């Protein structure tokens, strides 16, 4: 009885009018991340939050849950979209390490283990290194948002790397896409990836993609000091 009366009372209790917190939060996050595209996406991820699923290709099934790390969002889905692997990979125009360093607003990290990359690519503030012949990709950025969709056959493990949490994705192919400024998932480029490691260093988010074991991937990641 008292419970029912409380439920009825709830419609009559004065609650403060809702506030639009988005502009203030955008400003606050923006003081740390000055790139406007990043801001918009950050706000989409946090203020509008997770229940508002990003627009997805129609072939993809329902999002079961997701997690975030740096500028990455990993979504767990029942089924991956039907996409073909694209070659060459669309990771931006080819450039030199020197030019990439001049163009991005952060200190580009390089590997003390792998030596000079075979190719350097630039896409927005994302610097991509290709080692071997498309065997290993390492990409780093501060404000480039992306998402990965993983299906039931793929496992995502939380691993420790330099005292911080990293994500190791393995066991099945997963789908990758960039997230645009308007919060939409870019319909292209699409490609399916093998194993991947995502980690952060300072305010950079790095990801490694290729056919490596977890131990190998962690070793490579540690070499980006």
């Amino acid at each position, binding site marked *: 009885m008292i419970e029912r009366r409380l*439920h009825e009372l709830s*419609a009559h209790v*004065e609650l403060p009018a809702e*506030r639009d*917190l988005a502009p203030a939060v955008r400003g606050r996050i923006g003081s*740390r991340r000055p790139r406007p595209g990043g801001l918009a996406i950050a706000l989409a991820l946090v203020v509008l939050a997770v229940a508002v699923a990003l627009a997805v290709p129609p072939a993809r099934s329902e999002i079961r849950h997701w997690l975030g790390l740096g500028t990455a969002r990993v979504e767990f889905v029942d089924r991956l979209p039907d996409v073909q692997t694209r070659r060459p990979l669309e990771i931006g125009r080819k450039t030199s390490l020197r030019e990439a360093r001049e163009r991005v607003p952060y200190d580009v990290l390089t590997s003390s283990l792998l030596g000079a990359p075979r190719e350097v690519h630039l896409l927005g503030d994302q610097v991509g290194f290709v080692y071997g012949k498309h065997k290993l990709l390492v990409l780093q950025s501060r404000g480039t948002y992306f998402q990965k969709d993983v299906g039931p056959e793929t496992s995502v493990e939380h691993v420790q790397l330099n005292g911080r949490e990293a994500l190791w994705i393995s066991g099945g192919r997963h789908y990758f896409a960039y997230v645009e400024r308007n919060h939409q998932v870019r319909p292209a480029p699409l490609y399916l990836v093998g194993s991947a490691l995502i980690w952060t260093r300072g305010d950079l988010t790095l990801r490694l993609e290729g056919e490596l074991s977890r131990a190998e991937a962690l070793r490579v990641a540690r070499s980006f000091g």
Partner: protein
Amino acid sequence: MYQGIAFRTAWLVAGNTADAEEAAQDGFVKAYRALWRFRAGAPFKPWLLRIVTNEARNRRRAAGRRDALTLRASGEVVSGDAAPSPETALLDATRRDELLAAVNRLEEHHRLAIACRYFLELSEEETAAALGCRRGTVKSRLARALERLRADLGETA
């Protein structure tokens, strides 16, 4: 999506709208920066509410405020049902006022549990996150609060 509930939960805890707004903003910014720590599969809302209400509690503590928030009736007419007769409406309003006064007489931790659960319609898990306690504590606080309300209003269980 969660702006409204985060702000209102912070308001319950902080005790005023200015602190609640700042606490909610701080909470969202902290949540964004801690997003990488968010566990896969864990519900997002309790995680966010815990961060926001921690901010609200800190603000209240820093301001040294001990006086608890007093809940008030809105005075709004709730649509949906056929309009009651003036006598029925008066009786209903009187009973609501009595109940709200009894809720305001509860100790603060009991009142907050009731407000989160019944007025903000949070789940037990979300209420626990908002109040910074265990789910079992929420259960026992709610049971005790309901018992006291019944005693205060002369109702039987």
